[in-house]
């Protein structure tokens, strides 16, 4: 077993990057995720593993540094919060087009615009449906605990390199700022340049000894080639939809009504399930862990098992509900409940919403 500590989600994310052998972190501070770069600066990772940590002059600079480092096959991470992630969208579209692996964390705060520094989940659309231009996807992982803030750094890098794309850790101000127990992994060594060359033949790291030149770009003015490239990307996304869906079910075996919630809302809804069960209601929780690819088939399976309705619980005005409804396809009732602007719903009001909007009391 690894080292047991009490940490904030943001700190666990930062420590995990060092321990999982990341080569670089480029970021720009913004509440509520400034602890990431603070912690990394304080830890002096260059001394510990040789990992480079740099505070860029802006979010734009940071994401383009990620593009460069990722193109050379290095394990590179960045993080920000909502308005900062907006600024990174151009870079993320280029990263998708050029098929560069990287991990980015979005510790979401209330919006739109500068919004508030309090927790929110209103950037579901931005991260799961695009944000930048073009037909592309990012892998989106939604941690619901400090432990998962740590673990998903490893999962994010594994998936990002497996599919050559960006993996987003979609967190929020609550998960980022809260402290919980976390078991930290043992230190893994960073990959050597030789290992990177052997493992990632696409990486740009110097043309020597007769190797072919490699091109990493999102630009191609030949339409036929660009169409082919898009078809290739879509094929990759299809494969991910088949193989990488992750979710957790709590009390769903005999459930008649199911909350669908991710991240901090899933923690709250889990308490609502407890309160509902105490009151004799057959309620359960489906917690998507991957938001893209979405656990559409899990919802389908629940409907086939007899679930009569779903309540999508999000700290937003209703974004994930669209994916829940697509999965339901009109067969059963699916409604949204959520507080916004930095206000966090209580387990009691979430249960009340289930009773009122779905069960119908």
């Amino acid at each position, binding site marked *: 077993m690894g080292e047991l500590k009490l940490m904030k989600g943001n700190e666990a994310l930062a420590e995990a990057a060092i321990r999982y052998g990341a080569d670089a972190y480029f970021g720009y501070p913004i509440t509520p995720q400034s602890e990431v770069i603070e912690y990394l600066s304080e830890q002096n990772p260059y001394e510990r593993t040789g990992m480079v940590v740099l505070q860029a002059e802006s979010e734009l600079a940071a994401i383009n540094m990620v593009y460069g480092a990722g193109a050379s096959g290095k394990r590179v991470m960045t993080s920000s919060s909502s308005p900062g992630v907006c600024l990174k969208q151009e870079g993320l579209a280029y990263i998708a087009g050029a098929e560069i692996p990287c991990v980015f964390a979005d510790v979401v705060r209330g919006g739109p615009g500068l919004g508030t520094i309090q927790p929110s989940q209103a950037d579901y659309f931005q991260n799961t449906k695009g944000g930048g231009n073009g037909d592309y996807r990012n892998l989106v992982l939604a941690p619901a605990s400090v432990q998962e803030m740590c673990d998903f750094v490893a999962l994010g890098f594994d998936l990002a390199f497996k599919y050559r794309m960006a993996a987003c850790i979609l967190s929020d101000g*609550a998960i980022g700022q*809260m*402290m*919980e127990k976390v078991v930290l992994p043992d230190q893994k060594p960073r990959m050597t340049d030789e290992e990177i060359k052997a493992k990632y033949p696409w990486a740009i790291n110097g043309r020597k000894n007769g190797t072919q030149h490699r091109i990493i770009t999102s630009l191609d003015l030949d339409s036929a080639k660009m169409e082919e490239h898009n078809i290739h990307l879509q094929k990759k996304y299809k494969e991910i939809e088949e193989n990488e869906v992750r979710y957790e079910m709590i009390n769903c075996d005999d459930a008649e009504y199911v909350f669908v919630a991710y991240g901090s809302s899933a*923690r709250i809804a*889990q*308490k609502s399930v*407890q309160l509902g069960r105490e009151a004799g209601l057959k309620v359960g929780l489906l917690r998507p862990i991957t938001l893209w690819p979405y656990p559409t088939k899990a919802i389908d399976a629940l409907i086939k098992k007899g679930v009569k309705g779903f309540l999508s619980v999000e700290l937003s005005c209703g974004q994930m509900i669209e994916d829940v409804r697509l999965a339901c396809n009109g067969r059963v009732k699916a409604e949204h409940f959520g507080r916004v602007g930095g206000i966090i719903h209580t*387990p009691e009001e979430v249960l009340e919403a289930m009773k009122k909007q779905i069960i119908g009391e």
Partner: protein
Amino acid sequence: MTEEIIIAGFGGQGVLSMGKILAYSGIMEGKEVSWMPSYGPEMRGGTANVTVIVSDERVCSPIINAFDTAVILNQQSLDKFESKVKPGGYLLYDPNGITKKPTRKDINIYTIEGAQLASDMGNSKVFNMIILGAFLKLRPIIDDKNVEEGLRHSLPERAHKLIPLNMEAVKVGKDNVKKA
């Protein structure tokens, strides 16, 4: 066992660090814990509160609306959280600066003269540990030796020489909690 606690006061009173020490002590006791802060943008003078949950089971929501115990360190926090204590629960407060006393009859209300006792000890910084001691007298969920371990883990090494003083403050808190 699940104990859901809110600690609320001004920024600078050591509210968040008291919560952190409590959470770390809970880990040392082998419990599951969560620490969820909520504070105004100001570092000092603004209101600060933290929800700490110590449990034998996995903590589900770290954000809750009803508490087993409220530890209250200023009037605004009393106004805000008195009604949020579960019936039969505990409310512990420092009467210093409190002009409108709590009125509920269905909860257990106790006081601790934290500010006064810290001043008597000649160190205002141990205020939050006196409060922690008073809390642990009412809700003995964590052993003293695990509180000491919790301090060892949450304080930087350079502050470890202050652990005996902090444990003394915990004792002072335990000895001076009074039924209101």
